[in-house]
């Protein structure tokens, strides 16, 4: 009997291509993780198992400082971005379609489309002017920049969730004497929560991961973990970099896993 549907996994060469993709994707990561546990000083020559590079990284004050800065920036930027994104998502879905709405989508999602290097250069120019005018050179610039490019990442899952939500539920709440604010608090917000959490997580990870804009915007001594790692790679490369990267990877996986379980329980 002939298959009624086109099944791509039944095509010749499918398994080969799939395997090749997986190997290319994961082999470098596996290598990186393995050498994080190397006892020697090389990132290419295995000399036995050890945790020394993790310990060394953890004791490195510059790593500590950069890690804390990264986490603080990511947390604040993701929070503000999620707030703004939630409001933007509500404003663009809880309205009748009007001329210019598509333009607004594009406007909100601008950071996804404009090359990051362009934004980075633009911010560098503007911020350096502001620095001259105000004399302020604190972490505010980094926070502002991260918040801005995190907004679309937070916006997309929230909007998707809002669009999938049954509007009748809000109507039912209003029918049952809930004023608009109560409807939002008691019905819309609880149902939106998985979308908001997803948006926040995504924004958090994106901020944590950013190199290009951070590199351009940061003032002297404002290294985040990625820019610190980039700086280190220009000098001596030891498995300490692998250890930091592995810890970073573990954190990302942990965040995604937590999110997955939180979401599944809700659903």
């Amino acid at each position, binding site marked *: 009997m002939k298959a009624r549907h086109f099944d791509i996994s039944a095509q010749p060469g499918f398994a080969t291509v799939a395997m090749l993709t997986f190997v290319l994707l994961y082999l470098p990561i596996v290598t990186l993780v393995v050498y994080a546990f190397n006892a020697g000083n090389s990132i290419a020559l295995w000399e036995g198992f050890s945790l020394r590079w993790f310990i060394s990284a953890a004791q490195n004050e510059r790593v500590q400082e950069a890690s804390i800065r990264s986490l603080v920036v990511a947390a604040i930027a993701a929070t503000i971005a999620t707030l703004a994104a939630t409001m933007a998502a509500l404003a663009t879905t809880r309205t009748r379609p009007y001329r210019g709405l598509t333009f607004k989508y594009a406007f909100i999602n601008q950071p996804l489309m404009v090359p990051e290097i362009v934004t980075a250069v633009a911010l560098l120019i503007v911020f350096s002017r502001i620095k001259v005018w105000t004399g302020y050179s604190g972490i505010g610039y980094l926070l502002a920049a991260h918040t801005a490019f995190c907004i679309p990442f937070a916006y997309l899952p929230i909007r998707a969730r809002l669009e999938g939500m049954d509007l009748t539920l809000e109507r*039912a*709440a*209003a029918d*049952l*004497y809930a004023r608009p604010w109560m409807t939002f608090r008691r019905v819309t917000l609880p149902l939106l929560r998985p979308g908001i959490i997803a948006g926040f997580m995504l924004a958090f990870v994106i901020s944590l991961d950013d190199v290009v804009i951070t590199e351009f915007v940061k003032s002297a001594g404002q290294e985040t973990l990625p820019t610190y790692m980039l700086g280190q790679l220009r000098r001596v490369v030891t498995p300490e970099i692998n250890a930091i990267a592995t810890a970073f990877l573990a954190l990302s996986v942990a965040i995604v896993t937590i999110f997955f379980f939180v979401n599944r329980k809700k659903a």
Partner: protein
Amino acid sequence: MQSRSPGRRFLLRDRIALLPSLMALVTIIFETARRQERVAANGWNVPGQADRNAIEIRDVRKVFGSGENPVVALDTVSVPIRENEFFTLLGPSGCGKTTLLRLIAGFDFPTSGEILLYGRDIAPLPPYKRPVNTVFQSYALFPHMTVAQNIAFGLEMLGRPKAETDARVAEMLKLVRMEQLASRRTSQISGGQQQRVALARALAPQPKVLLLDEPLSALDYKLRKEMQIELKRLQHETGITFIFVTHDQEEALTMSDRIAVMSAGRVLQVGAPREIYDSPADRFVADFIGESNFLRAEMAGMNGARARARLASGVEIEARLPEGFSPGESVTVVVRPEHAQLVAADFDSSMPGTIENIVYLGTDTHFHLRLDGGEAFVVRRQNSPNAASTFEKGARVGILIGSTAAQILRD
């Protein structure tokens, strides 16, 4: 001193005896005050007249869109809906019945006209200020709440005390027979149970009017029949005015006290099920409610509420005559299939025709006939175990229409 002593003693005893009645009085005053407060909390004090309208739709128009192609969803609709009535808005999809319901609920606002709730115009009010609750077609139960939380929602929003809310929720759960499932999530119960929760939730705040938007359409046949009876029971027990929207004429006929038949944004007829079925006001109503045979005819004679109509075949039949017709006018005669009888072809004053098809339907049989004038005609006959059909396909027969079976309609 001595003379006043018994008097004083009596007074004391009297006071003690009075105490329970005093307490009862205080309780009554308290209860009354609370009840007053409850009405006030809802914001609606119902005037105490008998035989009043719960809702009165007055010249309501609803136009969607503007400019070149505005869509008239409701075209100057006026309907009074009485208190404690099971009132049905019946019509095909797109007739405006759901639009009208949405206007009463407050999800949309009329372009012009008034919607009076016990004499007060509610048309401009938002839904949360109307003592009207809705049972949605999709139920719209809050998925993040339990059954009990869903039912309590309206009372909470009205700011009722916790104890009162809990008691009312328990009462509602009992009313819809869902006590065991109070703490379940709404996704963990069946469609029929969800339906009952939606009902309980809408009834819990004791609305003045309950709106039901095709609430039975998602249920299977048997459950639908059960819920029809359940709805009637709830309406009877709660004494709340129900406004029910459906496109199912059978549902409308079985459940309603009165029906408004709607088509293309207009109300064509308002009346009791029997009235609408037996004397439809126009051709659309006759066609939409039940089955009908339509015959072209000419007014041959009039006598008050009776008329003689000359059919295309030349046969004259007697028919009921609504007002406003003149002799010689060309009209339509409507006859229900179950009100016509098959007789022998040469039977006196019967319409001659030929049986084209016979359809057996269990409870009855449909005879599809072709009249000599060329028009189609259906006769329905109830089946009985001991009377076999004597009419065969292709046979020439006569159709006898009783003097009360036919009605004149405008062409």
